């Protein structure tokens, strides 16, 4: 993609990031939730601190003190769950619509249940937390409060849904920027929210590189900055010494105060940055297809809530069977196809690289023949045509199937003839149907764009219920409670 390379170079010379889209291709709800999480060292299944809130109301911070102690950790997570679950589940109680989905009626909230986080790392951490909580036993020796597995199942589902291309239910601010701007930055460095923001909006007229050089030292989570990590470690040590094994919530809260203040400072910095970024991006006009994708998110959410209320109480298999894996892959591929197509159709800046790659063409409509006929199989059928003059040479091979971006769900056009004209070309395209209205063809004198992208629904994948012998594997094990379900051992 020389387009990407060109933009990166432009960013370097101008000292600012360059837009890769005219519109915003992810939806933003009016008052989304925001979660900030901090991990502890390399502990995969614990949080050092976790915060949740909304933009104007501010965040509530939950600090276990010593997350490696299961009781302290779960106490803090329970408090977090008491804030998270009502907020996340509450959308079902707002205004809803009834949707016919796969043959059944589904009640879907009108408002998108959106959660904003800093980056993909935070989503992964929440997913792992979810895995740990989702299968806890609520009866017997090590019973956990029922709210914890419920929180875990929500988090697991959210982390899973994050993989759907184009979704905005769990929105990573860093990814939002990465998909809408190009800077002279490697993919690795672009994972720093602070660095990307500095490139887009360098303070005091500094060059984006220098602004990012300094900004990237700010750790946005889930990993704290090395210095902060050292301080957390030291404070946690003191906390444990003073605690001397006690677990009473009041004592713990008291002794953890220093730790809480440190995490509060860290979270405030991240919080401010996230909202700065969201507020700025909100000002951009939303792309036309965002609402369709947001609707898919809302439907998925409704189905998840329905499953949570069902007999299994939201319990899902930890491993996919070959059949469910194939279906899931098909879903994701379909979503990706539609996303790429819709973004290009909605946004000329997104379409530009495809024009350069010979997958699309754009130009002024100089001719239109509504009554043109073609001899097809012995019959004289109506096949309207349109003639475009393009400013750059047309790189699309003849007889390629293209769709007019304004009617991307309609029928395809075939390139009939390409003639060089000055710097560009004159291209004739023929609509492949005799059923059309006047609006299905572009107006003479306007600019039109034809591309290989269409938004027709794909084929539905019909699979047999039993996987064939080529796809059968050993039966996957049942879900285990990570803390105690495995063969004993020291649980953290």
């Amino acid at each position, binding site marked *: *993609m*020389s*387009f*990407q*390379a*060109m*933009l*990166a*170079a*432009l960013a*370097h*010379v101008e000292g600012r990031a360059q837009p890769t889209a*005219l519109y915003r291709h992810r939806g933003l709800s009016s008052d989304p939730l925001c979660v900030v999480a901090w991990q*502890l*060292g*390399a*502990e*995969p*299944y614990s949080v050092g601190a976790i915060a949740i809130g909304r933009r104007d109301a501010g965040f509530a911070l939950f600090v276990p003190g010593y997350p490696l102690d299961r009781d302290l950790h779960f106490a803090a997570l329970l408090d977090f769950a008491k804030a998270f679950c009502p907020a996340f589940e509450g959308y079902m109680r707002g205004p809803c619509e009834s949707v016919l989905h796969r043959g059944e009626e589904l009640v879907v909230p009108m408002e998108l249940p959106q959660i904003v986080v800093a980056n993909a790392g935070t989503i992964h951490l929440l997913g792992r937390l979810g*895995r*740990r909580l989702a299968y806890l036993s609520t009866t017997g020796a090590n019973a956990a409060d029922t709210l914890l597995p419920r929180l875990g199942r929500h988090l697991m589902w959210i982390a899973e849904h994050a993989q759907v291309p184009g979704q905005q239910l769990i929105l990573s601010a860093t990814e939002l920027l990465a998909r809408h701007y190009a800077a*002279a*930055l*490697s*993919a*690795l*460095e672009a994972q720093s929210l602070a660095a990307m923001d500095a490139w887009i909006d360098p303070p005091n007229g500094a060059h984006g590189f220098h602004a990012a050089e300094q900004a990237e030292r700010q750790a946005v989570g889930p*990993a*704290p*900055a*090395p*210095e902060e*990590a*050292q301080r*957390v*470690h030291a404070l946690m040590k003191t906390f444990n010494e003073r605690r001397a094994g006690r677990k009473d919530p009041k004592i713990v809260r008291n002794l953890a105060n220093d730790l809480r203040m440190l995490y509060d400072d860290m979270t405030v910095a991240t919080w401010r940055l996230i909202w700065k970024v969201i507020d700025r991006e909100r000002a951009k006009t939303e792309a036309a297809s965002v609402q369709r994708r947001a609707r898919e998110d809302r439907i998925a959410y409704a189905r998840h809530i329905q499953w949570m209320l069902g007999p299994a109480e939201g319990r899902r298999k*930890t*491993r996919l069977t070959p059949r469910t894996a194939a279906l899931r892959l098909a879903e994701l591929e379909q979503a990706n196809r539609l996303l790429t197509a819709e973004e290009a159709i909605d946004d*000329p*800046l997104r*379409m*530009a690289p495809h*024009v*350069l790659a010979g997958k699309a063409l*754009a130009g002024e409509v100089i001719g239109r023949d509504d009554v043109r006929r073609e001899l097809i199989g012995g019959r004289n059928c109506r096949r309207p045509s349109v003639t475009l003059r393009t*400013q*750059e040479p047309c790189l699309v091979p003849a007889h390629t199937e293209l769709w007019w971006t304004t009617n991307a769900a309609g029928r395809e056009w075939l390139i009939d003839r390409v003639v060089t004209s000055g710097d560009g070309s004159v291209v004739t395209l023929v609509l492949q149907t005799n059923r059309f209205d006047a609006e299905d063809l572009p107006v003479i004198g306007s*600019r039109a*764009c034809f591309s290989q992208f269409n938004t027709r629904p794909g084929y539905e994948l019909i699979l047999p219920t039993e996987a064939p012998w080529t796809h059968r594997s050993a039966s996957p094990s049942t*879900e285990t409670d*990570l*803390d105690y*379900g*495995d*063969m*004993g*051992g*020291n*649980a*953290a």
Partner: protein
Amino acid sequence: MTPKKHLTELRGAAPEKRPTVRVLAAAMAHNDCAFARLALASRTDLDKLCEGTYFAVEFGQDPQAFQRGHMFETFVKDKDYAMLIKLLREHAGFSITDVRIRNLHSGAPPNERGLRQRATETRQLLKKIVMRAKDAPNIVDGAVLTCTIAGQTAYFEADGLAAATDGRIHVGEVKSFPFTDGRCDNDKLGATCEQAAWYVLLVRRTLADMGLPPDAVSDDGFIILPMGVGLTPTLLVKNLASRVRRAEELFASTPSGAALPASVQNLRFPAMDADETTRLDTLESMMDDVGTSYRPDCLQDCGMSRLCRARAQEVGSAALCGSAVVRWLPGVRTLDRTVALAAGAPPAPSEIHAAHALARAKGLFDRVLTRGQL
């Protein structure tokens, strides 16, 4: 001065890097950078050389992370490798009498002399294993292997373990990222397999030096990870053949530098107690003399990366943006030149190919921004 003395002089009063297989693997991943090769040959620790300056890189591992890794490794090796023995029996088909152990850390001083002692004993043990001697160990911890770097014999400590049965050697690495539901973090697993592959390569070379068959070292490595939240370990068997091949190619492609270039002979890495400005000046002039090769993944591996990146930015090197962008700009030296070509500057012969595409791209970009449509 002997070449060896040269290298010690070169390091000067700069901190020394303990040579482990992990260090070799990281250095080899950047063997296109002459500066990195120099640091490896002279065993200089670049991690903290920019400390206190604007370009300081914080490599400090989170103490919590270190603790978890240390705790898990200690647990696996506790009580004379009891858990490791159990894992080898249960997951790797080791027989119940495959319990001969040699921990080379024990009894060897933690200095250069100790390294040589361990290297000697490592060779003896490898021979015993391959010849299927009665007292050949089944578990070797703390082996030291040798290879030639810049014409000198260099000693590298293995961070991992070697497990042998019936004349076959498998390398093993103990890590603390979790294995849950049959899956684990693939990036971390990949990095671990990379380290293990270098261990395989070094053992094979050592065997070859001794006239023993290198394929006594199996392509299958053992990765030991905790399951779930707790520390109960499990053992994964991973095939390392393709990684070992890549490592071999990298190693072969490293400029052998049997003699250090004359220009290097007057250089010296700066000491830590020098003030920031002096340190930076020395490093920069060394970089000018020796040459560097900045890539974005240097940021994860090298203490000089921020300084190198800043220098790359000053000249507008396309490497700043990553390899993907570099591939799209063949023959174009800098990002500034890229923009000039995109704006229509006449291209040099090597730039023609890229220039045309760039000009088209810029044209489209400007058109969309001004008109709001294609």
